[in-house]
């Protein structure tokens, strides 16, 4: 039987742009160009490698996001994923992590899966919580933050480099995996891949397709509320000196004045 892989990818505002909040304190997604979160490219890459190793596998990329989030799906399809699912609904505006995990879990169940692959964190919210939440909601093992991953004989194994130790993990499929940016560079889409992606299927789903009520998600249904967002005051311009042989000593004098030495 075919190995069904679902890769969850997020469409995010470009981190090198001038990111802002909109008036309702949600991320302003109009001000800055969006793209496939760079950290999710690693997830797509590992899914492709797992699929290449398997006899028979099918990769579905899944995103929850606005209309333009299709760009992220196209990019993943052009890298080599087989098909895509886009959950899009106006009622999703302002959904928080708990809500997003609910929608993603329902969409993953709707699609059917043996393996879910996520990135380590998004580049906008940067929470790094969705993979654990998905494992919890789906009731399957969580095999996360892997810098090495392998799927064989219905099992997923991998290495997790934590703060205190490096761990070797193992779980039976179905499972939820997340991979770090140490897992291996992501491939660039080839011209052929880009052309082929245009013909691949993108299924659009809304909340009713997933049996989710509107008031369970969005700003109104959120479990958290942002009360205020303030631009951090620019740091006051510091002193900059050019080293003419005494730079290290000058710096030491500054550190002493600041009581660091």
């Amino acid at each position, binding site marked *: 039987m075919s190995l069904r892989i679902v890769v969850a990818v997020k469409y995010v505002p470009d981190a090198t742009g001038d990111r802002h909040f909109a008036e309702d304190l949600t991320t302003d997604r109009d001000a800055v160009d969006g793209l496939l979160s760079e950290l999710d490219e690693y997830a797509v890459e590992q899914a492709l490698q797992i699929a290449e190793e398997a006899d028979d596998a099918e990769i579905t990329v899944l995103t929850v996001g606005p209309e333009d989030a299709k760009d992220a799906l196209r990019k993943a399809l052009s890298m080599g994923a087989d098909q895509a699912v886009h959950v899009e609904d106006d009622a999703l505006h302002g959904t928080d992590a708990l809500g997003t995990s609910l929608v993603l879990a329902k969409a993953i169940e709707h699609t059917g899966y043996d393996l879910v692959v996520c990135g380590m964190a998004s580049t906008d919210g940067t929470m790094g919580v969705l993979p654990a939440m998905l494992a919890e909601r789906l009731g399957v093992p969580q095999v996360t933050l892997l810098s090495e991953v392998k799927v064989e004989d219905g099992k997923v194994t991998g290495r997790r480099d*934590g703060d205190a130790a490096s761990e*070797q993990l193992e779980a039976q499929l179905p499972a939820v995996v997340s991979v770090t940016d140490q897992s291996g560079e992501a491939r660039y889409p080839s011209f052929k891949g880009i052309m082929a992606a245009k013909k691949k299927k993108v299924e659009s789903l809304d909340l009713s397709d997933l049996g989710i009520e509107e008031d369970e998600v969005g700003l109104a249904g959120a479990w*958290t509320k942002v009360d*205020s*967002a303030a631009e951090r005051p620019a740091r006051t311009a*510091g*002193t900059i000196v050019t080293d003419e042989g*005494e730079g*290290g000593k000058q*710096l030491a004098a500054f550190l002493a004045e600041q009581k660091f030495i």
Partner: protein
Amino acid sequence: MGEVLVYVDHVDGAVRKPTLELLTLARRIGEPVAVHLGPGADTAQATLAGHGAVKVLTADLPEFAEYLVAPKVDALEQAVAAVSPVAVLVPSSAEGKEIAARLAVRLGSGIITDAVDLESGDEGPVATQSVFAAAFTTKSRVTKGVPVITVKPNSAAPEAAPAAGTVEQLAVTVGEKSTGTKVVSRTPRESTGRPELTEAAIVVSGGRGVNGAENFKVIEDLADSLGAAVGASRAAVDAGWYPHSNQVGQTGKSVSPQLYIASGISGAIQHRAGMQTSKTIVAINKDPEAPIFELVDYGVVGDLFEVVPQLTDEVKARKG
């Protein structure tokens, strides 16, 4: 005042500093109750009580080490049921965030991650977050369920506040679904003898400008003269010059020390995301146009191989 559960991050009972910060923050919103999982609760008790824990709930099951994350979530969920806290605070480590994430789903509670400050409010605890690579500061609340909040290291200065710290056994049943991910083997990180990167008061980092693994000695010497931790940019890590566990930035550690010294680092947005909340920032870079200089309190335009060793010598001389 209600009770606030504080998840204890420790190594065999040696309590890590971020937990003491959490206890300090917890006292602003209620009475801290520490949850200590794994061995060493008796060792940890004095430290936890000394920083305000009225109770220490403890459980030591082999499952905590044998399986990933989920058994700890079971324990914390059962602690919540036993205590009915007004909030649950967890250190913002990679594992801490995952524990908090699953707990939030189970409790049907909202979650806030990476808080840098916490205060009490009329409608529950208010968390401050530093977002978009520290370009914005937000204040947020959890509006449903028991607030689950993860807090970044160096968010508060730990305060001594003697309390009873009565040790109580927590009865924990590990769920059937919580033993799905086996930890087959574990290789502890070698200790460098230097302070923990995320906890250090001073961090000295090197980037591509360091130009080679052997040259990192220049950075390490400065770090040692200051009693600092060593950090690295992703460029230096990707080049194989320094371990990934020392990477500072979006996909590495997020640090917020009193003093951050960047040498041969340009200051890309992803690097800034991990260090921009440092109190004092110093940079050494030969390019006067390097973006890192936009952040600094003090910058030296020059060759790091000239400036850094001179600084190290001067620090040693001044310290006597």
